[in-house]
């Protein structure tokens, strides 16, 4: 698989580490114990979108620039559709 790192260009997938589903958004948790919703945390930590088809995933260019990326990839064909910096892709997302 080739992944087009925004900084480094097309690089082989073995230079990258994959974390998985980029969908879940970390719940907003207040500083005390009262406000955190266990279901939201269960969902964030343990449940995963697992589609056969296009999937948005976190990958890190560990063997290169160390950037975390959001890679849109087809899990049925391994075709990489798009790559963007996680910094940009996750900015301004609403909590799920």
């Amino acid at each position, binding site marked *: 698989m080739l992944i087009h790192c925004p900084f480094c260009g097309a690089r082989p997938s073995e230079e990258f580490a*994959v974390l998985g589903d980029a969908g879940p958004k970390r719940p907003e948790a207040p500083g005390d114990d009262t406000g955190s919703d266990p279901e939201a945390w269960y969902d964030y930590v343990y449940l995963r979108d697992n589609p*056969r088809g296009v999937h948005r995933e976190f990958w890190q260019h560990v063997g290169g620039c160390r950037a975390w990326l959001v890679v849109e990839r087809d899990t049925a064909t391994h075709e990489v559709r798009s790559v963007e910096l996680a910094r940009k892709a996750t900015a301004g997302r609403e909590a799920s």
Partner: protein
Amino acid sequence: MRYGWHSIVRQALGGLSAVAPAWRNPEPKPAYDAVIVGGGGHGLATAYYLAKEHGLANVAVLEKGYLGSGNIGRNTTIVRSNYLLDGNVQFYEKSMQLWEGLEQDFNFNAMVSQRGVLNLYHSDAQRDAYARRGTAMRLHGIDAELLNRDQVRALVPFLDFHNARFPIHGGLLQRRGGTVRHDAVAWGYARGADSRGVDIIQNCEITGISIEQGRVTGVETSRGRIACGKLGLATAGNSSRTAAMAGLKLPIESHVLQAFVSEAIKPYIDQVVTYGAGHFYVSQSDKGGLVFGGDIDGYNSYAQRGNLPIVEHVVEAGVAMMPGVSRLRLLRSWGGIMDMSMDGSPIIDKTAVEGLYLNCGWCYGGFKATPASGWCFAHTIARDEPHALNAKFRLDRFRSGRVIDERGGGARPNVH
């Protein structure tokens, strides 16, 4: 027809007309008491034990392809019960015990070969971790031996004991572990279930799950609607997709695990051996090929094929462990789709939907689990409650934190 030399002789004398099919090829009935989705090892075993242990015969197994077309026919055929953690140890030992009597039970030679499983260790810390694991096994009444280097050498003299990057210090041996001819497991269960009245329906893909007022009423399939009172999903690899038909999201990712076989050679290695300095496991099939594997590729996949980095990774470990294999040739590589769960352990459970049962999350352990998985899942479906052996494999363990994390990798499927 019961199998044995007598059936072979009858066939030799009578020709094709004396041949009885191993299973029927029935049309689906409009309704069943229970429907199992997935005609792989786990689904077929479940149907077999539903009929045999629980007297439930009005059962159908729906398989989207041919029977045994999933991971039951794509694995490296290893069986063992050398687990560490409570929940896994007793479950996999149940499986081991079922393997031990399986062939006589279902009258099909699955070539259960208790040739021993040897896990190598390369450091004091690894040795101690295996001691802990072996002691857990002993406490469950399972055989386990901790071997030093000389004892390993006596068993498998041709490993690279000294020269390797990670010298071999010894190994954990479970003599009762071994290999089983994988396809034959599916066929044996299929034949056994069929003969007890179970309908095995191939080329029948489910497209929807009908739920009315919180309970399952049937499935939509490529061959029409089939009503059922109970529905068991045994679709590892595709669990997220089938569960989604019932509105469930699972703590599972689908990953590709590659497996490899060399050209067939005369007897070369007598045990199952796993490397401790890299993820690698190998045994020799009765046909002569070295069957081996290693890590999953690491990315979500439904493609049943992997890529070269893992091929190299696995083969490097293999040649580092057994330098003599260098001149043997890799004949074929393939991939299976694993349900990688968030703690590396499986799920056999009821769900919030009445009559809907889950069997999923098998990670690397699906093949060796086949008999116990079917046995426990059948119990869970028939009694509507988990058996003690799968009571720890419940879905709510992720909520409560009672995870069963053999590798200590945490909520990250691709490190288990």
